[in-house]
């Protein structure tokens, strides 16, 4: 005997239930979506307001100096200082990241990593004070005269060295200290994600620890390190207070990093000149800020592109 299944029907008189909490969901969902859209609005507002305030610079006749010749040395100084900081910081950051991920005793690795992260906690104005009153005099006493005397044939170190030590090289070192925690943190994460099997395969074939790192860890982590370096570069490009306090600026384009004529950076120039500026000068400073915004935006886009491309490549 076959049992026939009847399609179940609702008993007569049953009213379909309202979804619970419909109003609450609408409000909450609306708030969340609104917050997300506000992010887009904010970013658009940043670009628009900067453009609006910067625009008079390009149409005015009040300024004797053209905008390009005003901002040119600043752009050079910004990129040059950030590049030097990156060159100093990246090898150190990779070494420190390798130390905490592969070389340090396992029990100490976490606390040691924490110390490096403390470097990121110091406010930039404190780095500026330290760089100007401690690092600059020490370097100008011990290092710069030696560089000028012995390596002065390289245009970087052409003498005479600035007596105060408030040069681009000092700034680059302080910037390197400031961006190092960022690069280290990202590199350490990537190195820790190296496939264990790759590492152990290398060791099983008789490799020393350095050979294992060179064969398994570094190739895997390369794109992550580059992405971290780009983020550090972005930070160095925008750093204001350390440069403003340490550097004694001049309106030049010069590759000499221990001399007395040092190009200023965009951000530091704004910080130093803005409080006392008025009228069209303010607009010009905001225009340089817009240039800086575009510059850091570009660097960040490249960093994210490398990060995305790298991860898919590493998996393959």
């Amino acid at each position, binding site marked *: 005997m076959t049992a026939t299944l009847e399609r179940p029907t609702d008993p007569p008189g049953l009213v379909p239930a309202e979804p619970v909490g*419909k109003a609450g969901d609408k409000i909450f969902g609306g708030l969340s979506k609104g917050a997300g859209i506000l992010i887009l609005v904010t970013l658009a507002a940043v670009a628009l307001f900067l453009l609006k305030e910067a625009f008079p610079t390009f149409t005015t006749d009040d300024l004797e100096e053209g905008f390009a010749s005003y901002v040119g040395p600043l752009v050079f100084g910004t990129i040059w200082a950030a590049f030097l900081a990156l060159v100093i910081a990246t090898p150190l950051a990779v070494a420190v990241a390798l130390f905490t991920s592969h070389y340090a005793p396992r029990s100490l690795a976490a606390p040691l990593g924490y110390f490096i992260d403390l470097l990121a906690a110091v406010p930039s104005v404190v780095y500026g004070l330290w760089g100007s009153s401690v690092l600059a005099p020490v370097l100008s006493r011990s290092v710069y005269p030696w560089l000028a005397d012995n390596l002065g044939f390289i245009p970087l170190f052409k003498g005479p060295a600035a007596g105060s030590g408030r040069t681009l090289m000092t700034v680059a070192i302080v910037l390197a200290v400031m961006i190092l925690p960022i690069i280290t943190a990202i590199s350490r994460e990537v190195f820790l994600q190296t496939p264990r099997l790759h590492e*152990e395969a290398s060791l099983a074939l008789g490799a020393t620890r350095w050979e294992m790192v060179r064969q398994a860890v570094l190739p895997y982590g390369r794109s992550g390190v580059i992405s971290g370096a780009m983020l550090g570069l972005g930070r160095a490009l925008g750093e204001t207070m350390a440069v403003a306090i340490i550097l004694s600026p001049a309106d030049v384009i010069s590759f000499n990093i221990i001399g007395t004529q040092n190009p200023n950076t965009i951000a530091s120039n704004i910080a130093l000149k803005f409080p006392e500026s008025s009228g069209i000068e303010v607009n010009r400073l905001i225009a340089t800020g817009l240039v800086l915004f575009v510059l850091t935006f570009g660097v960040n886009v490249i960093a994210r592109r490398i990060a995305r491309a790298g991860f898919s490549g590493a998996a393959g």
Partner: protein
Amino acid sequence: MSLATALSGAPTPSPSPSPLQPLDSGTLRRAQHLAIVAAAVVVGALSWLVQGTSPNWARWIVVTLLAYCIGIFVVSRLVEGARHATDRLSTAIMTSAFCIVLLPLVSVVWTVVQRGWGRMDSLFFTDTMRGVVGEGGGAWHAIVGTLIVTGLTALMSVPFGLFTAIYLVEYGKGRLARAITSMVDVMTGIPSIVAGLFAYALFVLRQGPGARSGLSGAVALTVLMTPVVIRATEEMLRLVPDELREASYALGVPKWKTIVRVVLPTAIGGILTGVTLAIARVIGETAPLLVTAGLAQDTNLNPVSGRMTTLPVFAFYNYAQPGVPPQNGLDRAWAAALTLIIVVAILFTVARILAKILKPKGLR
């Protein structure tokens, strides 16, 4: 050879030692290693005798590390062979890099404590700079300003960031969510001075050129703080297991109530930690406040009008324009710097304690 010995980096003994050679021949013994370290320290100490330059403990450490690297490589090459010498050199270099990177941290903390401690007196914390020329003066107005500006910033950016993160994790699935994520990434990269200029330009609309206010500074800091809050909150929300959400839905709880009563309380520890760290980051921001809130000599309790000094701006101006005689201004600047570092250290500690206390059991 076991994995343990492989990982410890000890080299394998050479293939066919004579039966009378000890098993660890061809390796660097512990005593030899310590001797190299000691020799490096001595060489570093000799750098103190270099003529024409003053004694410098930083140079001692650097020369010691350099001497150690060279020494270990040379000795290891003679005793153990080229491959293991390179391995020892790499270990030496990594350790040296770590020590070198710690030098600035130690130096900064030491300098700030040494130079700022002298003015950590009650006058510094109660007086303002009104009418002060030269000696005395204090940072009370700066401390109040910092509290007001940071408080306003947190008030604006925490809900903003929280709801955006909730949208990205719980609601958003399509193009809008992707666009928002990209823009949050862009926002993390905005230079702080640019955020300040934006806030200035925004308030110029309402208050005309030359407008300075604490609220303007708070808006600039919000632009800087919100992406940090979003990133931290997003991470924490993603860590909440889906099973919790689905159990809640299965019991008929509406989505918004699930988020508020189930997801958020589970993630609250991490979220609070992230917010505390974000506050620690913006409390030290100087550049955006230079161009928005400006410098005042007296306490200003009104955030919508008038200049409002904050602690980092106070430190900057006392250092850059200390007046005559300069030592007083410099002392105040260092004391303000020390106060800042102490505040940031307290915030970091609070963040760690929060993370520990509020960590839900069984989660990660």
